[in-house]
């Protein structure tokens, strides 16, 4: 028996634990008593910080190795040693609370939690053990991880003539993989693709934590199960064609940004608004599709803060938070500047030279293609079984429609900004496809299902948000005597 897979699984768990520790330290610098949702997102904050740290090291010629990567965090831990016992106690209480909750789950909840856990572990096993063969993973994301790690800097000069590598794509995912390579001391392509696992864990933890507060527990668990086990994610997490791609990570960053946006609206916590901006900025550093999201979040946030009068009374304690928000956007600007100065811009993705008369036909082609995806993309057909579609387009569409109806019928204005953000992002995808100067059918066949993967987590979250006021209404009428309804 070969124990490589078991060892690599252990390495990924250690990587997640390290990212969590780094993220938790960073969050503690901002907010000594963070909301549980922020703690749930801490591992991704840590993973992103380690990646960005390498970028900075490359600029100032600090070598990339375990020592240099970890020393700043050990130093922060040493300086804040007075806080460490409190942090450890908080974490112990958190995990003890989770452990105490497990035996109290109802039968259905226990089945969903057990099935969800099995699916998550199966994703990890597949991400570690299965081969790497996706085009974009090999041509773009994991190649750049290896290149950055090999050069010990984020420079694309060596490949500046390889236009097919989409050199303007941002570096965060490749840097996160490079930070894993730095920690293990070698570039390991097959293990590198398993970095995606941290997005699965954080996405599930944040969904369970947030929806557990906005809905009741069984419903929060059901939503989180859908978010974990949605068949649409199988190519990115289980079967392999999209292993090492950036679409699922981008989708989770987008969902986290919108989750914190809504949490900020309902609690007016400055750190929730901050993390809405931070995760939108991380989305923009993951893939170019994150750029419109960042713009949408900033504009909607400004409108929201302005309308609710929160801009008129900035408090002194909010300045550090505002500073971090600005700092989060700096790497995005820095990357765009680098791309521009190094001449790495790829040909325009949008052209208004299309004759107007062709637009209806092109729009119809896009809609028909997307609606036809379930017929094209199937699993279970290899052994002659009846093919099963893994594209949840009908479910996503119905879910978004239902969310809109819930918001409209209940005049739930708080939830409408997140809905607007998702709708604008989806409209942006549609317009880019409508006006692309490239071959439309080729673009659709290579990108349509992945664009849906990017939107899917946010669409699921949106339905949870849309249901939240009514679930609150049922709760207000009194919990059931047998099993009190409460958050996770």
């Amino acid at each position, binding site marked *: 028996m070969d124990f490589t897979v078991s060892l690599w699984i252990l390495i990924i768990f250690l990587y997640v634990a390290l990212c969590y520790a780094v993220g938790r330290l960073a969050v503690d610098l901002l907010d000594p008593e963070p909301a549980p949702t922020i703690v749930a997102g801490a591992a991704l904050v840590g993973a992103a910080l380690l990646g960005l740290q390498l970028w900075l090291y490359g600029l100032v010629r600090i070598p990339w190795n375990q020592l240099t990567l970890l020393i700043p965090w050990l130093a922060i831990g040493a300086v804040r040693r007075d806080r460490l016992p409190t942090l450890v106690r908080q974490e112990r209480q958190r995990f003890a609370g989770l452990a105490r909750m497990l035996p109290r789950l109802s039968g259905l909840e226990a089945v969903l939690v057990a099935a969800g856990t099995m699916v998550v572990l199966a994703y990890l096993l597949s991400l570690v053990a299965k081969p790497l063969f996706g085009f974009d993973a090999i041509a773009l994301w994991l190649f750049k991880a290896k*290149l950055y790690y090999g050069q010990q800097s984020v420079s694309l000069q060596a490949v500046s003539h390889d236009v097919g590598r989409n050199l303007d794509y941002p570096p965060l995912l490749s840097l996160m993989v490079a930070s894993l390579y730095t920690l293990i001391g070698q570039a390991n*392509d097959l293990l590198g693709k398993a970095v995606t696992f941290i997005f699965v864990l954080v996405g599930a933890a944040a969904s369970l934590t947030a929806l557990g507060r906005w809905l009741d527990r069984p419903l929060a668990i059901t939503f989180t199960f859908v978010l974990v*086990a949605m068949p649409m994610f199988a190519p990115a997490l289980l079967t392999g064609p999209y292993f090492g791609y950036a679409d699922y990570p981008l989708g989770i960053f987008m969902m986290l940004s919108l989750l914190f946006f809504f949490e900020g609206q309902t609690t007016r916590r400055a750190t929730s608004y901050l993390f809405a901006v931070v995760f939108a900025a991380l989305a923009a550093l993951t893939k170019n599709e994150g750029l419109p999201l960042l713009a949408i979040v900033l504009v909607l946030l400004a409108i929201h803060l302005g309308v609710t009068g929160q801009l008129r009374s900035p408090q002194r304690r909010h300045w550090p938070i505002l500073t971090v928000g600005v700092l989060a956007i700096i790497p995005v600007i820095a990357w765009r500047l680098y791309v521009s100065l190094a001449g790495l811009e790829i040909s325009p993705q949008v052209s208004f030279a299309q004759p107007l008369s062709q637009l209806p036909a092109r729009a119809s082609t896009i809609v028909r293609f997307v609606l036809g995806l379930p017929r094209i993309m199937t699993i279970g057909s290899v052994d002659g079984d009846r093919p099963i579609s893994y594209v949840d387009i009908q479910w996503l569409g119905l879910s978004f429609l239902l969310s809109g109806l819930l918001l409209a019928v209940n005049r739930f204005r708080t939830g409408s900004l997140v809905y607007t953000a998702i709708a604008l992002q989806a409209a942006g995808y549609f317009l880019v496809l409508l006006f692309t100067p490239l071959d439309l059918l080729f673009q659709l066949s290579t990108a349509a299902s992945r664009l849906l993967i990017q939107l899917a987590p946010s669409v699921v979250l949106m339905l949870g948000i849309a249901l939240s006021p009514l679930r609150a209404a049922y709760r*207000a009428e009194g919990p059931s005597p047998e099993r009190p309804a409460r958050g996770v």
Partner: protein
Amino acid sequence: MRNPRTFSAPGRLLSIVGVVFITAWAVRSGVVTGAALLNEHPGALLRGSPAAAQSAVREAFAQGLLKINQRIPAHASVMVLWEVKGYAPFSYAFFWSTFWLYPRKVTVTDRPDDALSPTTDVFVQVHSADQQPLSPAGYRVVSDDSGPALTITTYERSG
């Protein structure tokens, strides 16, 4: 947020529809992803080796690159001559070669005249079975992997 007690009957009905909908989606997700999961044979994955799984991919060129990667020096300058245009696009040959043979400097061409430069340490000819190997002067054959779709002949500079 509105007072939760003031929601209308349609609002409450839609809420129930929402709960039923997400429950149905959960069932659908469990069934489809569960079937896909079992189809992946997790026990075999756990017992196997990632390297062995990678070398078993059904693409002959990808398999060949993994073998070449083991056989040639880590910092060799590599030239790949791609003569099987019908097998896969040139971009495939380029991205796969530069990825799996990294950190070596890899040049990929589909023109035999460009194939060799004085600085080339390793020459990889990817051709169909009915084509003769080039056997360039000054190079010795390191390996010759033949398959039904293509043959990969690898040469290393002698001496």
